[in-house]
């Protein structure tokens, strides 16, 4: 499989969607069965190694899903190659910065 083209992107997009869907379901269930956790409780959970790992995996899935979706839209609608390359670079850089920021926050609090 080539990196994020064709089938690999198709599979990655669906696996990341399933992970995000599971996350939404778990959070919804948690909110439904008990009192809403406070921000401090969420932060304490994410600050544990396991919680931090879950946040990192979900953030990775979110950014990967966002990149493949954005790339598909740009391939379909932005035809001038230079403009497409510029917008793709901007989107990829933005997602990389967000991913790095997420990793730094998790590492600061959880590790």
């Amino acid at each position, binding site marked *: 499989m080539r990196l994020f083209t*064709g089938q690999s992107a198709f599979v990655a997009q669906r696996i990341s969607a399933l992970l995000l869907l599971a996350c939404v379901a778990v959070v919804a269930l948690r909110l439904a069965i008990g009192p809403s956790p406070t921000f401090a409780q969420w932060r304490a959970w994410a600050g544990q190694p396991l919680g931090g790992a879950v946040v990192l995996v979900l953030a990775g899935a979110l950014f990967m899903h966002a990149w493949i979706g954005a790339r598909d839209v740009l391939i*379909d609608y932005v035809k001038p190659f230079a403009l497409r390359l510029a917008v793709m670079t901007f989107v990829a850089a933005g997602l990389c910065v967000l991913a790095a920021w997420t990793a730094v926050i998790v590492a600061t609090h959880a590790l």
Partner: protein
Amino acid sequence: MRFRIYRFDPDRDSKPRWQEYELDLHANDRMVLDALVRLKEQDDSIAFRRSCREGVCGSDGMNINGLNALACITPLAGISEPVTLAPLPSFPVIRDLIVDMTQFFAHYDAIKPYLVNEEPPPERERLQSPAERQRLDGLYECILCACCTSFCPSAWWNPEKFLGPAALLQARRFIVDSRDRAAPQRLEFLDDVYKLFRCRTIMNCTQVCPKGLNPAHAIERIKIDLLRHSS
């Protein structure tokens, strides 16, 4: 019955125009193609393709009241007026309702629409079991009218690179054929960001296929075949 027909003659017109026609239908005028043939008797400058007149050759694919269809099997009974006839959307127009299908057939050619089998041929023919033959149902019936590909937004966005539903339906027809030996190569050819994976499952192809086929399903099955092939 009133008709509104897309007219364009590149030798005379700088841009396309719509032309209105009135036609008194005869008892034998049952399909849109019957009316078109009668209109051509009134105005012999109208250009369109047709051949078999019974939905087999795929020559008279066109856009009828906003949906792609074959004129020869689209009934006049109950059709809304004016009957608007346009060439297949997104294809370059040669003249009036005649479009250039060069790109369409180039994509068809790219999927190698023939059996690839280097094994020595048997004395009579390469046999299939009834079950193997049944796997071709819903695939081999395509008549290459281009109604699906011309109505596919993914093909509008990337006409040179996305193969389109008709070519992909045909690709699946050869991937599942028990007599073919090139399925791995066919799947590797399709594993590309454009050729197959531009399909967004919009399903316009399935909606307009005049033969009642389901190219969107065939495309999804190719994606599953690819997954099995690579795992």
